[in-house]
């Protein structure tokens, strides 16, 4: 009864086409945004901003990028971290080499650069599919990292290949505190997530899903495979590129090519698998699960150990954390292979019938 659409009539096309057609969803999203923009800055501590919220938003954005490619367009990719690296280094170089360029323009250009590189590595998708394509995108992972170490120009001839990002100047004001950085990241992520939500229900998004479900059938009904697949690669890399730029500028402050390792690509892949393949919300849920659970265990395990008087060293805690984490992932995938987003969907369906399930 709580989540009931009965009585919500749409009388105009505009009302029927809005992003969140159900009133409860609209209220929910608006409340969430209000809390995120106005509530959180008052309550959260610096630790929450710098160590939890900012990386969560950035990884959610990267997961969103991969979800567009893998979840909606069905093209498996293992190169997300590499596209993030492209974004990070591109934003650094645009800031460095173009005098007075606004930071947001740099981020957008970084996304475009990553999109270009993404198209390049998306070309094999025209001929190969599935696991074979995943292996082909692995090439991006290795090539881009190699390229960033090989050509010192990209890191402004830094002797170690590590770049240290410039100040974040936003309309003449330097963003220094974690709260300001959080708000910047949040705004960018919100805009891009809403854009993605809109995109996947448009013609483009429906074409992606058609290609994902069966590309031969899609081409029979007149969808051109090449532009559709390459567009998916471009958009996905754009998202990853912006996430990479934010990762460098708003989170770590200094990055090296080796930091964008295969491990990170896997992490992003796990995020969408756990969160829900082919779901915008799933990207956020997955990022939260993969990022926050280890930290949560890290903080609670010593506390529990203390409570029961167990002699835990920090190494033991770390090992237990890895074990618990692995076990939880297995549990989730067995109980709900469609990810956390599916659980959310089930919850909504239950709420529709509550309190009288039949």
């Amino acid at each position, binding site marked *: 009864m709580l989540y009931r659409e009965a009585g919500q009539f749409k009388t105009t096309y505009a009302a029927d086409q809005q992003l969140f057609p159900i009133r409860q969803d609209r209220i929910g999203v608006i409340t969430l945004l209000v809390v995120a923009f106005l509530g*959180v800055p008052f*309550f*959260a*501590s*610096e*630790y*929450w901003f*710098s*160590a*939890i919220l900012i*990386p969560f938003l950035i990884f959610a954005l990267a997961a969103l990028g991969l979800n567009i490619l893998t979840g909606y367009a069905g093209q498996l990719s293992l190169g997300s971290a590499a596209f993030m690296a492209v974004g990070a280094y591109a934003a650094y170089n645009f800031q*460095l080499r173009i005098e007075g360029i606004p930071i947001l323009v740099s981020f957008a250009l970084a996304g475009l650069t990553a999109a270009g590189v993404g198209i390049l590595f998306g070309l094999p998708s025209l001929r190969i599919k599935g696991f074979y394509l995943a292996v082909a995108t692995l090439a991006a992972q290795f090539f881009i990292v190699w390229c960033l*170490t090989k050509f010192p120009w990209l890191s*402004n001839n830094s*002797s*170690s*290949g*590590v770049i*240290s990002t*410039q*100040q974040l100047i936003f309309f003449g004001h330097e963003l*220094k505190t974690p709260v300001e950085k959080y708000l910047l990241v949040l705004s960018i992520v919100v805009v891009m997530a809403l854009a993605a939500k809109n995109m996947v229900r448009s013609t483009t998004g429906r074409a992606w899903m058609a290609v994902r479900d069966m590309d031969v059938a899609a081409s029979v009904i007149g969808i051109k495979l090449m532009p559709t697949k390459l567009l998916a690669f471009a958009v996905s890399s754009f998202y990853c590129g912006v996430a990479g730029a934010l990762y460098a500028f708003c*989170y*770590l*402050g*200094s*990055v*090296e090519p*080796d*930091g964008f390792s295969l491990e990170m690509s896997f992490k992003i892949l796990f995020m969408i698998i756990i969160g829900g393949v082919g779901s915008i919300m799933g990207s956020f849920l997955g990022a939260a699960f993969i990022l926050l659970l280890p*930290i949560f265990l*890290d*903080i*609670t395990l*010593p*506390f529990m150990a*203390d409570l029961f008087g167990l002699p835990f*060293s*920090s*190494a033991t*805690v*770390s*090992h237990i954390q*890895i074990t618990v984490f692995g076990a939880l992932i297995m549990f989730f995938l067995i109980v709900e292979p469609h990810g956390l987003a599916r659980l959310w969907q089930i919850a909504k369906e239950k709420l529709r019938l509550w309190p009288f399930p039949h």
Partner: protein
Amino acid sequence: MIKSFKPALSAVALSLAMLSQGAAAAEEQFFPLIDYRVGPYGSNGQAFYGGFIDYLNYVNLKEKGVNGVQMTYEECETEYNNAKGVECYERLKGKAAKSAGPLHTMSTGISYALIDKSAQDKLPLAMMGYGRTDAVDGSVFPYAFPLVTTYQMQASAIVKFLKDKNGGSLAGKKIVYLYHDSAYGKEAIVALNAEAALNKFEMVQIPVAHPGNEQGAQWLKIRQEKPDFVIFWGWGVMNQTALKAAQKVGYPRDKMIGSWWTGSEEDVVPAGDAAKGYMAATWNVAGKQVPVIADIEKVVYGAGKGNLQDKAKIGTILYNRGVSAAVLSVEAIRKGQEKYGKGKALTGEQTRWALENLNITDARLKTLGATDLLPEIKTSCDNHEGSGKVKIQQWDGAKWVPVSGWIEGNKALIHPLFQASAKQYAKEKGITPRDCSKEK
């Protein structure tokens, strides 16, 4: 969610603090330990941080802390992962606001990520033998300290050692630089190029891709080049592979000289007899003949407060390195207390001043029982390195034997390179350098 977390967090922090030091003393000096004991380099971290913590406990047990101030610490596991390092830093930062010893991350990546943050939060970052080397110029990097020595000074010292060994000249000789193709391996190139130009030797650079367990092609090239020496900048599994490969192609091991991250027991023992005669630079000696190391074993392990589970690591290169890092840190606390009040814990800002005004002479090292454990150190605003000296040691098949005294790199050649790089950094970041002549 956020609100309900805060009490849990503080409860955890409190219980940890109680756990780490037993009864609470009035004044305590807190060391945030952003360390690692699991992950790919876990065994190195165990030895290093084991030594570090053992020395802190040793000071507590032996002399009841520095002027009555107890040394406390809290560990946070990073697994050598940069993002985790930042998370740990943010977690420990709150506790470090009251009193803070220097941060030792033993990871170049994490140090890089923390350089700006730590300067903003006024917490000193010590990078002993790793990290951002141009932070030697303290006018641009007030809170970063590449203490003792840097990769560049080490490379220069190795060249000096080879030069002395070769009758005072390297003209016309050929030296191969075999390196781990990463930030770490590349740092030394600029210094070696400068040395090659100065000493007129030919340098051949041969990179090895991470992780370095495949070096067939590289050693084929070395055999063709027939170099007089191989300077070797390896890491982890790459080191033993190189030693075995050298044995296979018949390259004499006593003409190979490694950096300080290629010269621990973890590197040579797995290589077996292929490692015999191999030399490496180091800024701390191995062994229990150093009085303080033997005393730690007696006092700390005697009281059952030892940090290492594997006692065989006591006296290894990395364990002693951890102890020497702790010696420096505790000496900084002592120095700071002289200025800011004895028996009082130092804030990060005060520790920073102390690190910049260290003066640890051989006489002082002798009093500490750390004679020759590490070189003399005297830091200042424009020299955060403070020493630049390394020793060359040789593996005799069972232990490391020092084969030289302390060798200082060519400071006049290397330090201007740091200054130029620091200047570029200041320009990129919009930092106005401090005037070092006005610092006291």
